[in-house]
């Protein structure tokens, strides 16, 4: 059966619509269910019922003794925030250098940076602990930002280099012929075009440090404890307190909606700029 191009267009449009709907269901379904779990009374948590009396009891519980989610929120925000603020510019600079310049041992260096992340944290966490103890960085924001930076930077550099590689080098050359300095080129030409990449790398840095568990568990104790550690205290000896985890998880996820909306706007904005040039 042959379809006219127009009919074919319609069919494709519908198929795309269905595919997107399925995709959204797959991505949002579990999140929605976790949210529902967080507002269920305990008697309905381990059932599939959709008819229950919504309660904020779980949200109340997580802010109280001994969990104190509210207190930990500031730590998490600060540690992840600083990691992004320091990490992204530093990574961008390095990525640009790796992408644009020729130098000796570049391949080795570039590979080496990534290779620092090849060893699973499980065996380096104790050495880290000993090192931080010597440096008096245990249980501090500085220590946590530092260790998170060392983890996210290699990946961020790689991501950003990938984005910079896709930008035709001719634009920069043209500008430089016109007399612009290299730093200016980076700021005025490269940065606007790589904005989507910068945001992806930023999201990565933020979320990765936000979710880091093992280092936070071993390297903090009171002052710099982050949310993932609190989340794990719901694994009590008397089983997993799923409803409390769900409440904390929902609470943690809320700012992400805001962030991702904000990111989206810049995403398209930056990308449009890139392609219009």
């Amino acid at each position, binding site marked *: 059966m042959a379809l006219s191009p127009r009919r074919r267009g319609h069919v494709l449009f519908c198929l795309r619509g269905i595919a997107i709907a399925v995709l959204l269901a797959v991505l949002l379904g*579990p999140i929605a269910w976790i949210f529902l779990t967080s507002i269920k009374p305990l008697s309905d948590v381990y059932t599939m019922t959709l008819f229950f009396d919504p309660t904020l009891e779980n949200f109340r519980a997580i802010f109280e003794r001994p969990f104190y989610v509210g207190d930990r929120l500031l730590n998490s925000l600060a540690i992840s925030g600083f990691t992004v603020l320091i990490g992204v510019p530093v990574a961008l600079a390095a990525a640009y250098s790796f992408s644009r310049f020729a130098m000796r041992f570049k391949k080795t260096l570039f590979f080496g940076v990534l290779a620092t992340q090849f060893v699973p944290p499980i065996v380096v966490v104790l050495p880290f602990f000993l090192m931080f103890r010597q440096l008096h960085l245990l249980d501090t924001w500085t220590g946590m930002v530092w260790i998170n930076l060392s983890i996210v*930077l290699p990946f961020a550099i790689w991501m950003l280099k990938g984005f910079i590689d896709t930008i035709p080098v001719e634009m920069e050359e043209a500008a430089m012929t016109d007399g612009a300095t290299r730093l200016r080129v980076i700021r005025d030409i490269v940065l606007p075009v790589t904005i989507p990449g910068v945001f992806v790398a930023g999201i990565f840095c933020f979320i990765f440090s*936000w979710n880091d568990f093992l280092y936070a568990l071993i390297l903090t104790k009171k002052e710099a404890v982050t949310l993932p550690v609190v989340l794990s205290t719901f694994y009590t000896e008397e089983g997993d307190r799923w409803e409390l985890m769900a409440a904390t998880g929902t609470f943690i996820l809320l700012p992400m909606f805001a962030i991702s909306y904000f990111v989206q706007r810049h995403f398209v904005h930056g990308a449009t700029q890139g392609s219009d040039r």
Partner: protein
Amino acid sequence: MRDRHLKYLLMMPALLLVTATVIYPLGYAGIISFMDWRLSRSRVPTDFVFLDNFWRAFFDDPSFLNSLGVTITFVAGSAGGAVLFGLLIALLLARRGRGYSIARTVLVLPFAMSPALQGTSFRFFLNPEFGIFDAVLDSLFPFLAHVDWLGSSGWAMTWLILTDMWHWGPFLSLMLIGGLLSIPSDTLEAARVDGASTWMSFWTVVLPQLMPVLAIAFVLKTIFSFKMFDYVYLLTGGGPGESTSTMTYYAFRMGFSAYDMGYASAIAFVLALLLVVVSAVYFRLLFPRGEAG
């Protein structure tokens, strides 16, 4: 400032930060992989045993060899799966328009969900009595109604991979959408004017343009797949039997449950070595003209 100096200056902060941080822990862990360090006996490493830990892994420990195979299966499934899933999402959503933009807002969320919560929740979702995944799948595919999802080896591995894909796919798609949206629209127009079909232009225009980002997404995901720990720990505990016991999980067991840090380090370094080999191969394949540097 001259490029000659600038190129090093730009790199310096990142390189210094990374090396200054990891050199001690990595060196320490590297050294103890050649040492006897049983936490139950001593709080510090004791004797040099040279290659004993590595010898034990390859010639005297079936569980380790098993974990090697499990890891490779998982990496192949989850790295390939997550990148494909990400590409699919990207192709669906990399369009201009308000609707698409809103749909893309969702993509951060699975990645933002803490692995601890996701792992715990997905395990409950698969519960035959009140699990939402189980219920949905049973009604879609009645012949699967009696499958105990985490109770058989094949399904447990499948769910491990799917769980990991759910977490990473959308994030990778963000990387790819970034790449796709920066393909100049006139390039696509030109292809269309030349009469290329959507499919053709995907292969001849889109994919080559996307290659640098795609390649990097693949390398990064491979690294994370090799190191994945949380979902094994939370979903299956390595079971049934040892069918989902990956190398990181096994290293964890050896370090923190058998108190054998020297051996755990050796396993971790075998994993790292494997990653070096795999990434070197990727380099050759994905960046054939040495564009990666």
